């Protein structure tokens, strides 16, 4: 046991060493790469290190040089004039504010307090602008150095028209990817960084941005998960356990149910196949929350299901299946069963498509070899389906970890646990909603969001990299 632990530790340490060595090499290479144009380039290229576009102007690439120069001026103007949005500056002051998160507390007759939230946001935006600027700065140097190299080879520097033509031809991928990268940076990376930073502050229900300040608290919110007596410490593990249990059952019950349904509908001899498929697809066509609210009403205490069970004499009084169920088990089983209604049609539809494309001659060959129908299913159909649907299975598992609608509309996270925001059917993501939107504890919500991200990202990477669909992706014909 100890030996195995030591081996694991040594392996971990060697990976870290390898990472540090690779990173150091990368830095060395980058610095060398960055210095090279200065050493080997023309005066123009050297000038580009100080004035963006200088090298291009030196090579008479006026438009390109002008664009680089304009970008530098724009950046410098924004950076040093610190334009204000909602009374909060962007620019170098935003960097200072990012670290202080505001100092002005304001008063009822004077000004408002500094808006710590905007200060953090604009700090992140300013870091983003600096990153974009540095990328442009590097591009300006290499643009000039490239012209130097062309001159050395006896060619003329490219004109703006040629550069544009190149963008539509050999560098078309850059043209296409730029808006995507900017979009990802603006709408994914910046908000994610903002959310991560919030987790290190005391931005909770007592803070109203613009009226009071919040501040950095280091890892206090994280340690609260594993220590202390609070909501997070008491409920994190139970909620996480139920989230994973839910994701497992919700994924595999729908997966197996969908396959069985697809096999049934595609069975030779079953008539009106298209009609059956259409009926099941209807549940996909309806907005999910409408289906869920309808099911919630069907199962409610005065709903038709209870009325029917009471008329049949199975129940003598209404039975609570969902949020007011007497036990967590009842509510949990109910949501998993209801989820079949929502999830099975997706798998059925996909599996139907796969089944229709299994090469018929494979079955014929198996039949000639004397395979039974079950053997053909086990050795041909099932591996075929699993191979193709593994990525779907993983996506579905991750989707179920973050499945908000089903729990929110069916049980609202209840049955409740006295003293806790998280109910017995709350998933990490619905708990996160309650903590942030209803309770206003944005910092704690961010910590949970980070943990949710770590879990989903790790589960995705691990399972996908170990799947045949990944390892043998080139073998599928």
């Amino acid at each position: 046991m100890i030996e195995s632990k030591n081996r694991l530790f040594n392996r971990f340490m060697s990976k870290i060493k390898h990472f540090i060595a690779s990173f150091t090499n990368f830095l060395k290479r980058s610095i060398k790469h960055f210095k090279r144009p200065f050493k080997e380039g023309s005066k123009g290229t050297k000038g580009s290190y100080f004035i963006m576009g200088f090298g291009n102007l030196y090579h008479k690439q006026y438009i390109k040089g002008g664009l680089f120069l304009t970008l530098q001026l724009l950046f410098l103007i924004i950076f040093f004039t610190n334009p204000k949005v909602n009374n909060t500056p962007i620019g170098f002051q935003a960097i200072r504010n990012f670290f202080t998160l505001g100092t002005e507390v304001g008063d009822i007759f004077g000004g408002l307090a500094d808006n710590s939230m905007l200060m953090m946001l604009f700090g992140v935006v300013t870091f983003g602008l600096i990153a974009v600027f540095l990328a442009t700065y590097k591009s300006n140097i290499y643009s000039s150095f490239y012209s130097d190299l062309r001159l050395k080879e006896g060619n003329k520097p490219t004109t703006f028209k040629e550069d544009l033509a190149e963008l539509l031809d050999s560098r078309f991928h850059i043209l296409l990817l730029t808006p995507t990268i900017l979009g990802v940076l603006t709408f994914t990376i910046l908000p994610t960084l903002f959310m991560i930073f919030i987790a290190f502050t005391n931005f909770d229900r007592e803070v109203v941005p613009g009226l009071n300040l919040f501040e950095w608290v280091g890892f206090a919110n994280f340690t609260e998960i594993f220590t202390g007596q609070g909501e997070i410490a008491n409920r994190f593990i139970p909620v996480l356990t139920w989230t994973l249990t839910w994701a497992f059952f919700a994924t595999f019950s729908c997966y197996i149910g969908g396959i069985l349904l697809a096999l049934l509908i595609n069975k030779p001899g079953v008539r009106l196949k298209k009609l059956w498929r259409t009926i099941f697809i209807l549940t996909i066509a309806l907005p999910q929350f409408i289906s869920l609210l309808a099911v919630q009403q069907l199962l409610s205490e005065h709903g038709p299901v209870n009325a029917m069970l009471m008329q049949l004499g199975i129940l003598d009084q209404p039975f609570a299946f969902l949020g007011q169920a007497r036990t967590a088990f009842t509510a949990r089983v109910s949501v998993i069963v209801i989820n079949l209604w929502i999830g099975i049609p997706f798998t059925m539809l996909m599996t139907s498509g796969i089944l229709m494309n299994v090469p018929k001659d494979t079955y014929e060959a198996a039949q000639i070899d004397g395979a039974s129908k079950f053997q053909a299913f086990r050795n041909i159909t099932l591996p075929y389906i699993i191979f193709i649907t593994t990525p779907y299975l993983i996506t579905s598992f991750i989707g179920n970890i973050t499945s908000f609608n089903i729990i929110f509309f069916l049980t609202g996270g209840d049955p409740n646990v006295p003293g806790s925001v998280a109910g017995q059917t709350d998933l990490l993501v619905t708990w996160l909603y309650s903590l942030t939107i209803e309770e206003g504890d944005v910092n704690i919500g961010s910590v949970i969001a980070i943990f949710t991200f770590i879990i989903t990202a790790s589960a995705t990477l691990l399972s996908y990299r170990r799947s045949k669909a990944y390892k043998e992706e080139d073998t599928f014909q």
Partner: protein
Amino acid sequence: MKNKILIMILVVISSVTLYGCSRSKPLVIWVGAEVQDFFQEKMEEYVIMFEEREGRAFPFEVQVRAADTGTAAGTFLDDMDAGPDILTVAHDNLGRLLSGAGAIRPIQNEALIAQIEATNPQAFIDVIRADVQGQSFLFGVPYEAQSLILYYNRNYLSAEDVETWEGIWEVAQTNNVRSLSITGADGFNNSFLVLASDAETGERFVRLYEEGVLENTEFVNDEMISIVRWGQAFFSHPNGARLASDSGWEADLRTGTSLTVIGGAWHFRAAQAALGNDLGVAKLPRFTITEDHAHGSVSPNTVMQSGSFTDTKMFVMNRSSDKLEYLEDILLFLTTPEVQEQSFLRNQTLPAYKNALESFEGMTADTIQGQLILAQLEMFNHGIPQPFGREARFNVFYYQRQAPDRLLAIFRNTNNQFNTVESIIEEMNLIERIWLGERP
């Protein structure tokens, strides 16, 4: 030709832009959707009055917009610059609005202060007053009030039955249904027990942030233990009280599975839709502490009157408004007893005016709406305004760590974990500590 077209386009664009920029921002007031038309008309009257008085046009266009008064404060705090000049909030939002640097302006117009002090019950004045930077200010102008009352099914219950919970309970047992559905687990809903008072002396036993002081809070005493024990008997009995079913309290009333519901005026239309002409409205009933529930110094057969958190809706001024000099005069007009009476007659809103019962026409029990108003007015005698206004922390403390859910858990006693007096007292102590701001 091309140049001419280009110039024309530029002229049109410039004109539109200049016109847009030259128009001053309207003066915006947020009120509840049910009174939007009423206050828009009142503001039109005000503008005419202003022009006659001042001899000049009112400098702004006035827009009265509908807003959900329950969430208005939160929406406003999300972006104060985009907020209205005047908004309507429930008084218990005051603490949040005054948090830190404060988002609203104190009232400084002497005429308005005099009007507020002359026309409102002292309890309302106490909860809209706050100390800021060593000085005491009024921060809102009350104009509507509300409290909890009882909606009941007249098919089963007579006016006499609903005078006591025991009367209702007995009918519920006869019909094997529930006596009561409460609409939620929050502090407002459990206030019928938490704020119960001695029916004879009127003495209330719970103390919640009295005079705006955190330490003036007490939950655990003999009377409250007795009340909680009675509440437990009521909630844990199959024909007693329950949290509304997952079909909703309206369904509980409609289907006759619950005979009564505790609610506010905002539940009236839904209750009427559920029961139609069978809907009855009454003040919250009394109940009697029996030998089984009496604790310590409390005598058996002590009669308690159910209590209620009361609420006042009030106008507050956005401190970032660039029209502050006009706002107090507008509020002086909009909250006069006359305007409150007009609103009552037209919108059936319960006025905050303290002499409404005696001086307003139409305050009679001839109609169900009249009964609704009278029942609320009666409940004002047995209730207190939510005492969370002065400090944002109080509201946080009262609701943190799911304190109301813990209390409901004692009442429901689902898993028999509160079978003994000791376990009840232990949990009540915990709730008291939560109210005091501890995070046990």
